[in-house]
């Protein structure tokens, strides 16, 4: 059985989280997030296999098709070079015509192009729905954990989740990754997933609380973490493996999900032990019963 003093080092973990949060919030405030066409309206054209076409040729072809300042980026999937081009065209008919023209100009087959066009009003719709889903998720989880466990657990669990989401988004802002609806879906999943770890720890703390004696709440909580740490590590590793494989082998759409999921899973595993459990233990020790235990056994 492992015996690591997590709780004793909680200040270090809080400090790490504080720094990560500060950097994340800072990057979100200063750099902001780059949102995909789904949120703003416009057209995204992706070409997985760009053949020998250069960025300059691609840009020129789009300009010749009547698009001012197309945003041409190169991509690479499994060693094949491709492009993602974003334009502000919101009429799919016009976009299809432009793409047909470009395809002819750069001598690529028409079906090598994947074209997504989003109308101007649709983006706001998608954003609202995403935010609504987020709010409903958080509310439902708060309710579930409050009913199943207790509200102190649910609130600290949500703090941990918000911590995870903030850091994941911070990394997106810092690295300039594009936020798509898939990213939001992945974030929502992390919300549930990060709770997975937290709940495992809380489950054990709750069980051990029933026969808590001759020990402070904090010590018991620390033992509880140690009891489940191997399991938590293993579940995190087995969850991360498929997601990481998806990140490296999955192609563009899957990578969208995998990136947010990998970061979120990692941060989520950490926050269950580094944020949720210590916050909960600190809060519980303010209860008279556990405060008394603390007086008696602290430093034992």
């Amino acid at each position, binding site marked *: 059985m492992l015996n690591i003093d997590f709780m004793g080092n909680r200040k270090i973990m809080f400090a790490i989280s504080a720094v990560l949060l500060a950097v994340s919030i800072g990057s979100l405030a200063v750099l902001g997030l780059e949102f995909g066409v789904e949120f703003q309206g416009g057209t995204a054209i992706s070409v997985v296999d760009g053949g020998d076409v250069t960025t300059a040729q691609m840009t020129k072809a789009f300009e010749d098709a009547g698009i001012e300042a197309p945003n041409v980026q190169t991509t690479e999937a499994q060693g094949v070079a491709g492009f993602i081009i974003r334009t502000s065209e919101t009429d799919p008919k016009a976009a299809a015509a432009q793409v047909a023209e470009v395809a002819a100009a750069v001598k690529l087959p028409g079906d090598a192009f994947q074209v997504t066009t989003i109308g101007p009003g649709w983006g706001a719709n998608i954003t609202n729905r995403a935010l609504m889903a987020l709010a409903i*998720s958080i509310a439902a989880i708060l309710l579930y954990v409050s009913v199943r466990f207790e509200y102190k657990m649910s609130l600290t669990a949500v703090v941990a989740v918000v911590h995870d989401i903030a850091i994941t988004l911070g990394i997106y802002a810092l690295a300039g990754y594009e936020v798509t609806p898939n990213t939001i879906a992945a974030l929502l999943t992390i919300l549930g997933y990060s709770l997975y770890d937290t709940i495992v720890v809380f489950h054990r703390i709750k069980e051990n609380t029933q026969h808590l004696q001759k020990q402070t709440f904090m010590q018991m909580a620390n033992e509880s973490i140690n009891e489940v740490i191997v399991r938590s590590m293993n579940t995190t590793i087995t969850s991360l493996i498929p997601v990481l494989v998806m990140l490296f*082998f999955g192609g563009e759409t899957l990578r969208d999900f995998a990136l947010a999921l990998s970061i979120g899973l990692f941060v989520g595993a950490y926050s269950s032990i580094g944020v949720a459990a210590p916050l909960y233990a600190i809060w519980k020790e303010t209860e008279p019963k556990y405060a008394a235990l603390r007086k008696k056994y602290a430093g034992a």
Partner: protein
Amino acid sequence: MDQKQQNVLLVVATVVLLIASWALFWPPAERITQGLDIQGGLSVILTAQETSDTAVTAAVMDRAELIVINRVNGLGVKEATVQRQGSSSLLIQIPGIDDPEEALAVLGETGRLEFVDVDSITDSATVAAIRANEPDVELTAGTYSPISVDGVALTGGVVRTASVSQNPQTAEIEVNVSMTSDGAKAWGAYTTQSIGKQVAIVLDGVVKSAPVVRSAITDGQTAISGGFTADEAKRLKTVLETGALPVSLVPEESRVVGPTLGQDSLRQGVLAGLIGLGLVCLYVLVFYRGLGLLTVGALVTFASFFLGVLAVMSRVGVFALTLPGIAGIVLTIGIAADSSILILERFREEIRMGKTVRSAANSGSKHGIFTSIDADLVTLVSAAALYFVAIGPVKGFALTLMIGILCDIGMMMLFKRPSLMLLAESVIPKAPALWGVPKPVEKAPSAKGSKGGVAGA
């Protein structure tokens, strides 16, 4: 029935379900419907635009849907689907389409045809433009109305059939309209009195042509010319025959995917899933040895149930696998491995606490399942919120995630717990080291009621 018999029964049921699942989903390429992003094709969401004249009611949407279905059929494509999305949108999916531009034009065209007496247009600048034969003159709403005789308005409503032909004299491509008997009567009455007048043929507010009435037309046949290309004329024919949309439909989200592209993505996704599954199996085998084998069995059972369910849902037409859906599946591999590990860890821990292998299998798997279900339900809540609230392709992700979680719970109850308990009956105690089972702590003095086996803090 005692516990053992019950467990044997559950394992037998699992085997039966496994065989059934394989029979259902094999070969997966045929049995599991592929979504449009994998098959390749056009997927477009058209949203009805509410105006002051027309409210978007359910009846209006029913009519619009019917018209759109007819137009899609007019394109001559196979297996296209039209679905209502929310209260005012239609999702149209056309697999394997060659010319998305053409399809978009046909689907989105309102197709409001009107015959307008040019003299009756109240905007003089427009009238002048029409008289000067300018192409595609746009009319302002409210400045004109279609010719109406005895209460029959000459609009798209009087069109019975339409056909495309080339005028032998002018070589121009024309759309010939054949009118209903009411329409023919009204058109006949109007043309008889209006020889020499100019009639504007207006499509969606744009003047397509403005011929002068030379003689009375009583047979209800009229040609519409307007510098059409063959494709445009064909499109107009479809639009006129299917009737005008009661509201204008605006494309909100359109995705065009080439067929080879989708298959490549599918291959990558399946590869990622298989490698992920393989590595997870390898990891649990190394870490848990014999018990890892049980986890591998659990994962295979889970994956088979999952694919079986997807095949059944495909067959009844409520499921199509999309790329976001694949992401959901890959994620659930991790979730299934997690619940399996939760049970194993709990089992090992209870042995460490001094329980016999047999009773540890019973209570360990029970507690492990409770914890997993708690965790599963939380993920399920997020997935459900996403599924019911969000729009667009992420729905596919939420759907597979939900199905996967339910399959995971089923797998634990049907396979994991009974098979662990059966193995614990005789096989595991014979070779604990091989199965990765720890030695129990020798008679912890007060094992009951304390957290036995934990070193003092």
